[in-house]
């Protein structure tokens, strides 16, 4: 906790962000370059899915990003509520739009894979429906911040939305095991992976690329939120003087 407290100071966080930002940006670009090279050039077409398997290299990382960001948001919100960490609420707020874009991409690319493979863009099965609910949770969370002017009240209500919505994450994960679903089960398990390395390696590189993209954009978005608060404080101070 002492380590978390250390970065509660916005000035210290901004200093760290400025030092780390170029490196995470470079790593993100390199991971995307390598991931796309392996996904589009090196990976072979699947014997059943054909070239359509390449959709997996953008669908799976987006879906991973969507759930990972939501869990991150829920943990940040919990830290914000329990420890009143000043950066935790800002961190959750800054993560939400990125998570919403990942979720949207997972839904759209999944639908575009479903049409040639399943013969339909959409079915209301457990995995797809729970993922759609995740998208609605992101929108609801963003809407709370937009609708409430008082910062502390907005942070509290948004945190409750994030924490209640976290119940949906295990439902997404285990939906393919609990219910009959068109969606295939997880490719990773405790006994290893069911996917050949020629597909698995680009997939993992793309997952890392999406994760680093989140880190890159999230650091910038927190910086932006801190600046916004400072601008509001200065404008308020100026207005009070006048």
């Amino acid at each position, binding site marked *: 906790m002492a380590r978390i407290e250390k970065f509660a100071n916005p000035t210290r966080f901004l200093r760290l962000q400025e030092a780390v930002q170029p490196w995470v940006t470079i790593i993100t670009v390199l991971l995307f370059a390598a991931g796309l090279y392996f996904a*589009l*050039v090196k990976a072979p*077409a699947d014997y059943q899915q*054909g*070239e*359509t398997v*390449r*959709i997996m290299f*953008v*669908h799976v990382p*987006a879906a991973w990003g969507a759930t990972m960001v939501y869990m991150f948001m829920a943990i940040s919100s919990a830290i914000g509520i329990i420890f009143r960490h000043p950066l935790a609420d800002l961190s959750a707020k800054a993560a939400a*739009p*990125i998570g919403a*874009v990942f979720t*949207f*991409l997972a839904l*759209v*690319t999944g639908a*575009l*894979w479903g*049409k*040639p493979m399943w013969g339909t863009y959409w079915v209301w099965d457990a995995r797809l429906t729970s993922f759609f609910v995740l998208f609605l949770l992101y929108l609801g969370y963003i809407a709370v911040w937009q609708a409430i002017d008082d910062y502390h009240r907005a942070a509290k209500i948004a945190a409750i939305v994030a924490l209640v919505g976290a119940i949906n994450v295990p439902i997404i994960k285990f939906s393919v095991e609990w219910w009959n679903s068109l969606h295939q089960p997880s490719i990773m398990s405790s006994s290893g992976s069911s996917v050949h390395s020629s597909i698995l390696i680009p997939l993992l590189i793309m997952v890392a690329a999406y994760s680093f*993209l989140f880190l890159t*954009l999230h650091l*910038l*978005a927190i*910086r*932006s939120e801190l*600046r*916004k608060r*400072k*601008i509001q404080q*200065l*404008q308020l*101070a*100026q207005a009070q003087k006048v």
Partner: protein
Amino acid sequence: MDFSAKHMEFVLICYGISAFMLLAMTITIVMRSKQRDRQLAVLEKARGKKHHKETS
């Protein structure tokens, strides 16, 4: 990659949408961050001038 393969249009649309959305999000976040940095610099400069006038 075989561009004449069956269902290739779905693959291209997926990559196109993903690239567009991720780039749009990146540009939006970077531009907003830069804009707020500039806005804050202007406000702090104005405050510094005012403070200097008041003290001298």
